[in-house]
């Protein structure tokens, strides 16, 4: 591929722990292949340079402040392709947990009496939003953190002019292929049956349960949920609490 045709990539972060960016920085041996494939023009976590001339924008983090909304809109305007990176950007992630409180409750709880007046750095939206709550997103790389292989796959596909696709089936498929004992059989609750696969069932394969960080792909009927919970002696409250960690749907849902 000639220098000229290399897509220019910029990576931005909003409200996030930067763990997904770290996954990219940690691609290690293949980082050479990555820079042969694309030209990274902005990536705050690893470089000082910055440019507003890019083809692909990769956004990490959820959107919490009015000022972020504005920067995001500018990025969308500049980019031909916009990718949401990680659970925070794709589905709002853990940041969305705060949506159960009003803005006032939140300020009181966090900053108490001091407050921060009109400082825009501390002003927040009424609700934390995923990137596609503000601007259209072309592709998603879900997960908390993202799966490095999936990141590579998506970037490569885009460089080759293809449409990257995410698995349309749940984690159970990968979990069964990995020959794990079902987490439910161990008497615990797992979000694997309704969470989008692509992580190679990493949590159940390491003795944990799926937390749904890649987003839900299926809403089972109440009948089904009841049946499953009673079969395994599990509790509805507990299930809701677990689901809400990454997939909390708003205030009415609490």
């Amino acid at each position, binding site marked *: 591929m000639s220098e000229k045709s290399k897509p220019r990539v910029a990576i931005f972060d909003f409200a996030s722990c930067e763990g997904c960016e770290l996954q990219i920085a940690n691609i290690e041996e293949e980082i050479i*292949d990555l820079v042969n494939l694309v030209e990274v023009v902005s990536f705050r976590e690893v470089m000082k340079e910055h440019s507003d001339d890019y083809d692909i924008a990769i956004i990490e983090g959820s959107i919490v402040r009015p000022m972020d909304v504005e920067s995001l809109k500018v990025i969308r305007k500049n980019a031909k392709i916009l990718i949401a990176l990680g659970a925070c950007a794709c589905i709002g992630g853990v940041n969305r947990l705060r949506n159960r409180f009003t803005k006032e409750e939140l300020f009181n709880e966090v900053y108490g009496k001091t407050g921060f007046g009109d400082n825009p750095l501390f002003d927040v939206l009424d609700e934390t939003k995923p990137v596609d709550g503000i601007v259209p997103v072309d592709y998603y790389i879900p997960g908390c953190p993202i799966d490095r292989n999936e990141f590579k796959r998506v970037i490569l596909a885009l460089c080759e002019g293809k449409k990257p696709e995410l698995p349309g089936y749940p984690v159970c498929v990968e979990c069964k292929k990995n020959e794990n004992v079902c987490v439910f059989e161990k008497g615990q609750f797992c979000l694997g049956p309704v969470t989008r696969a692509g992580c190679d069932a990493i949590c159940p394969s390491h003795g944990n349960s799926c937390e749904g960080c890649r987003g839900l792909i299926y809403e089972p009927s109440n009948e089904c949920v009841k049946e499953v919970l009673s079969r395994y002696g599990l509790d509805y409250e507990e299930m809701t609490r677990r689901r809400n960690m990454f997939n909390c749907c708003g205030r009415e849902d609490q």
Partner: protein
Amino acid sequence: MEFVLDKKSFARFVENLLSDESLDVEGVKEKDGKFVFGHLDSASDLRLDHDVTLIPPKKYFLPQYETILRYDLSKPFSAKAEKEQKGKVLLGIHPYDVAAIEQTDRVYLDDYADEGYRRRRDITIIVASDILDVSDRSFAAAMGTHRIYSGYDLLLTDLGGRVVVVVGSKKGKLLLEKHAANLAKAASPADLGAADALRDSVEEKYARVLKVKKEKWVELLEHSYGHPLWGELAGKCMQCGSCTMVCPTCYCYDILDETALDATKGKRVRTWDGCLLQDFTKVGSGEVFREGNTERFRHRFYRKGLYIPKRYHFTACVGCGRCATACLPDIASPLEVFNGLHERRSESAGGMAYALPETEKKKKRFDHMPACATIEKVEKLTGMEKLFEISMDDGDAFEYDPGQFVEVSLFGTGEAPISISSPPSGKSSFELVVRQVGNLTNKMHALKPGDKVGIRGPFGRGFDVSKLEGKDLLFVAGGIGIVPMRSLLAYVLDDRNRDRFGRVILFYGSKTPKDVLFMDEIRELEKKRDVTVKLTVDRCDEGQCWIGCTGVVTSLFPQVEITDAENTAAIVIGPPIMYKFVLKCLETLGIADERIYVSLERRMKCGGGKCGHCQINGVYVCREGPVFTYDEVKTLPEAFE
């Protein structure tokens, strides 16, 4: 031939196997309180007292992820098949799993034999073991698979202090001779009697009762297509696919290309897929052929109890009970479902008749390795379609029937089924017309003369031209349906063949004048003897030049008189929604169902009746189709939904 080994000698036998460098020794071992097949490190790892393993041993023949070939994109066409060489011994396979392997053998080896499967099967030695402990959800005894008489190389019966070994094949005998030479003694009548008693005693350990014998499943399902139970159970189904993943008799797969980040080296991977998953039947246009939960849920049971039994003469369930354990809402067990259908038989609101279409009984080979071919010519037909002339690099004549298709392979992107659009010529080249809809077809459109592509096939059943001889032929094409039709049309109108067929009428409908394919060729056809052509477009935007009609293709029917309906065959190819309307017109004309030919499209991954994606109820479009007579598919509820 039967032998006996005391417990110590048996352990020595396993140790001997383990120390044989030429063998990979896998067996049943414990994992988190359950059992799995895995690599054995020592004889003491091996468990012969397991109830059932999480995943059946099918993973050794159809691995969860199997590299079928490796490619290198830095070269014009470079692919190498991945060949596993090392021999394998599998220890502790239960009888029901052996029965399942025998079934998969039939599917994967009898016809369109799968190279990868055959290779793995050849290098594997099956050491079965009789059941000591029965899983709570299993109903193997009801399926007659709790004991076996064939399918193993060696069969072990663990009698506590000693193990009886029955030799089932030459492979098994050699293994025993090599690794248990001084350990195995001839079994005494007492040993054999004890082994037999143990096998007999297993049956009583099964607590669950199957109320409708497996031989009766076919008949039961023929009555139960519209049974409310399907909807009731599907309402609880999470579409998680676990029931198919863990099943020893499920074998559907998907194929994906994975290229490394260097953008050159990659592999084509085959992986388990399942008909319960929502995207299983989704195609490039976004259409999902088996769309509802209920349809998908029902399909799995119809495959087990009706479609496969009719095709292969066995029931595609061995009663291992894995699906029952794996299904969280507990709705997946065939035992409970068939019992339910049986008990509530009177509630059914409609059945289905299913007969397998007659196809040529020639044995065929089948491989996922494509042959190298060269693009000779590229011609832009419309904004969406390009014509490619492709020649096979081996130079051999590429033989096919009109209506057949090939799988076009582009490494790094995948494969797509594409109909052959040119008439059979006896040359090594042929023509394809490709519409740009997704990843592979986009890549195709970027190809230039001289570029290489992979070709597999030809596949499927095309038109049986002998059946069309002497008849008047009415061709009805909608949109891209003209592409496969062109092969037959050109064949029939070839001067060398023309006398063998009667009058030819072509009705061809397109969206707009811009979308009409092969306009020049059609104009030429019209000049030929006894040929009537009528064209129509759905709409004609202002300023566009169009001399044909406007309206859907069925509006052309009144314009031509069919003089001899008794002696007319109709060939209908178009988008799914076209069929319903055209078929009605043909019925009005009095053209018999067995003289109406249709070509149907479904998602495809293999072309050999294995991957499961192309199924219309029990019919494989890639094998019995894509060309069917209407008569063959009209009773299939999924054909024209």
